[in-house]
């Protein structure tokens, strides 16, 4: 029984990896993903207006990807 345990564990790990819900989207299947509707922040001006007060209220400047120290002085 003890000898079979590693095999059983290996089998369980493999089974779990196969049972995941992730699927690889092949390069030629990315047509829908490349649609402009999939862009989160299509309008950079609108994004700036929306994020500026949020950054300083929450002290999260830089948290959404911009480069800043988070001191609120930038």
């Amino acid at each position: 029984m003890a000898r079979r345990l590693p095999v059983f564990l290996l089998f369980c790990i493999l089974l779990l990896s196969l049972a995941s819900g992730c699927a690889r989207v092949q390069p030629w299947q990315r047509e829908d993903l490349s649609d402009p509707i999939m862009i989160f922040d299509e309008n950079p001006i609108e994004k700036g207006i929306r994020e500026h007060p949020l950054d300083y209220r929450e002290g999260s400047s830089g948290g959404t990807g911009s480069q800043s120290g988070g001191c609120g002085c930038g």
Partner: protein
Amino acid sequence: MKRRIVRFLSCAMICVNAGAQKIHEKAPDFSGTSPDGKTVRLSEYAGKAVLVDFWASWCGPCRQEMPFLIGQYAANKDRGFAVIGVNVDKDAKNLSKFLAGLDVKPDFPIIHDPQSKICPLYGLEGMPTSVLIDRKGIVRFRHVGFKPETQDVLIREIDALIAEK
């Protein structure tokens, strides 16, 4: 026991990598139909250096690459060089619209492959993918993506394949 596990993992790794088509191997033959209804087959270009380009109109670098391919084909078609475009747009209208917007139209064959049956043969990892096949039908070079600096490399490789007899 250890040997059995190693054997099993080796087999699993081989299976995972089985899809990727490698260089220095025979280029898988394929055929398809161009938007104007003509049948295009890779094996018909035997004896020529062939660049097979997998592209789509929704892919930015593919759009940038097209004028370069048109120029290379025009410059080298009389030296034994051919280009075959494999377009994977789901809708042929998008392909036609993109081609209509080009200043210089491609005069090399383009296969419209909306179900992407050809792509898995070449194990693509990104778009566009340019596969360079020598006169003997062997895949010699492949490039994923297109950047301005890729052009010089491609030109050198195309010249090298054309020079081979």
